[in-house]
């Protein structure tokens, strides 16, 4: 099957446009983060400007971003680990015992708008004096990450042949032992996929932290708003803050591209 030459030309042109439209804005954001506010306002300095680190100094020192980076890392890491601990056995059971309705309960969390849960959560957690603490942030982010883990891992366990588990049972292992020593080690690529996606979604989450965090536990997506004043916007600082939030996650995603793609497309081809 050799496509015609005219199609090849069209394909190259069209895909070049796609790549430009997708990447140019990101390049623009990163470039602006290295410009002074004067240069951002000057069209002639669009691409030829003398880079400055002032914006980053402002973001990291004055605006306390180091603290928010640590907050974001901690919340995303804890929510991911906790979701794996709860989600892996659940997904295994739901896959092996074909518990479709139980799975639906967990997956409902993906469908419900977060706002509808926030008022009751706020009420309960403020009575428990937890609002503003890391505990409630981690719990709320688990609410995003756990359904992802269950969804991805159910598909993964479904695709895993059961012969090895059965052989392990014959050899005297318990069911739980077979899960722990045979199935889990075989599922590491799936676990990596689920873990990476949980981390990304937790890192990017905005609404829960907007309501449930306080000045000390703020995560990066909430902290960005510090650069949007009522009168004017510090564009250089804002773009540096946006780059600090999003560049790490994009770099990580590039290194583990295969896992991210298989996680995002999980369940898409089963029909």
């Amino acid at each position, binding site marked *: 099957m050799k496509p015609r030459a005219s199609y090849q030309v069209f394909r190259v042109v069209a895909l070049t446009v796609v790549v430009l439209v997708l990447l140019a804005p990101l390049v623009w954001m990163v470039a602006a983060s290295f410009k002074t506010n004067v240069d951002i306002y000057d069209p002639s300095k669009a691409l030829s400007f003398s880079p400055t680190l002032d914006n980053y100094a402002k973001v990291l020192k004055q605006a306390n971003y180091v603290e928010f980076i640590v907050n974001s890392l901690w919340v995303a890491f804890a929510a991911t680990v906790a979701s794996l601990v709860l989600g892996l056995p659940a997904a295994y*059971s739901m896959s092996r015992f074909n518990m479709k309705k139980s799975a639906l309960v967990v997956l409902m*969390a993906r*469908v419900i708008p977060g706002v509808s*849960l926030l008022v009751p959560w706020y009420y309960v957690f403020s009575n428990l004096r937890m609002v503003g603490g890391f505990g409630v942030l981690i719990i709320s982010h688990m609410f995003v990450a756990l359904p992802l883990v*269950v969804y991805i891992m159910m598909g993964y366990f479904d695709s895993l042949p059961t012969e090895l588990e059965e052989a392990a049972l014959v050899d005297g292992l*318990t069911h739980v032992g077979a899960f722990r020593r045979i199935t889990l080690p075989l599922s590491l690529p799936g676990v990596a996929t689920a873990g990476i996606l949980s981390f990304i979604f937790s890192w990017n989450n905005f609404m829960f932290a*907007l309501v449930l965090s306080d000045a000390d536990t703020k995560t990066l997506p909430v902290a*960005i708003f510090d650069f949007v004043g009522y009168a004017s916007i510090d564009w250089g600082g804002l773009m540096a803050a*946006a780059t600090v939030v999003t560049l790490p996650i994009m770099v990580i995603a590039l290194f583990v591209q295969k896992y991210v793609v298989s996680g*995002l497309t999980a369940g898409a081809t089963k029909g």
Partner: protein
Amino acid sequence: MADAPETPGWLRWVDDHRKWLFAAPAMIFVAALLVFPLAWTLYLSLTDAEGSVRAESDFVGLQNYLDVLTDTARFWPAVGRTAAFTVVALLFEVGLGMAIALLLWRPFKGQRWVRVAILLPLVATPVAVGMMWRLIFDPNIGMANRVLGWFGIGPQPWLAGQHSALPTTIFIDVWQWTPMVVLILLAGLTSLSDEPQEAARIDGATTWQRFRHVTLPLLMPTLTVAILLRGIDALKTFDILYATKGRGGGSFHEVETLNVYAYGLSFDYNDYGVSSTVLILFFLIIIGAMWALTARRKEAQR
């Protein structure tokens, strides 16, 4: 091998009950965070709760529902914006996503780069993406108007315009999430076998006919999954709207969707009774939309 005698009794019990011991913690966690809040939201929607979450409130029956459903100032415009945002964004994302997936289907040189470009917007933090487009769409200093200038088109107000704000946020959503549709459809396309394509080609079908009558029907289940996943998230869009227009969806509520409206009622005005009513109605809309889509899917499979 003989049954291992060292297996203690409690482990045996655990093993026999593993089905629910494994599944229950996750289910209890989700149900605790889900069922009680939903029940409470339903209860609040029948009261006049406002001010503080601890304040006394009176039962008002269906009064909130009457008020909200006859509210043509905020509620119905928000429903309209939510529907417009979701439908238009979905149309573009599925249309463009399908086109790009088809372009990427057969391997070619430089494929890696295109895949990188597709992945980056997808994992970028939505709030940061909103801020980034705020700069690009700034009417005075933004790149968008300069690019239009190259083609001799005058400057546009973009996010700052009362009528252009919603289309601009739709554009941002399309920019960020079309890649998601591309990835899902590409996974679907790669899993298709070549044989039906070949058979159609031998029968003399044109490229369009092969797409329309062979590829598209085979891809339908994957396409439905893509529409379902993206549709749910588009209905619930919050981050980029809040990042670009702030509270209330801007001074004229120009991008105020149901989600933004309910958020504002809850956390800017503390009008919990009304906001719960809006949320229950919003929830019913989401369930209805999902039901309609899955019903279509089952019909398509028959």
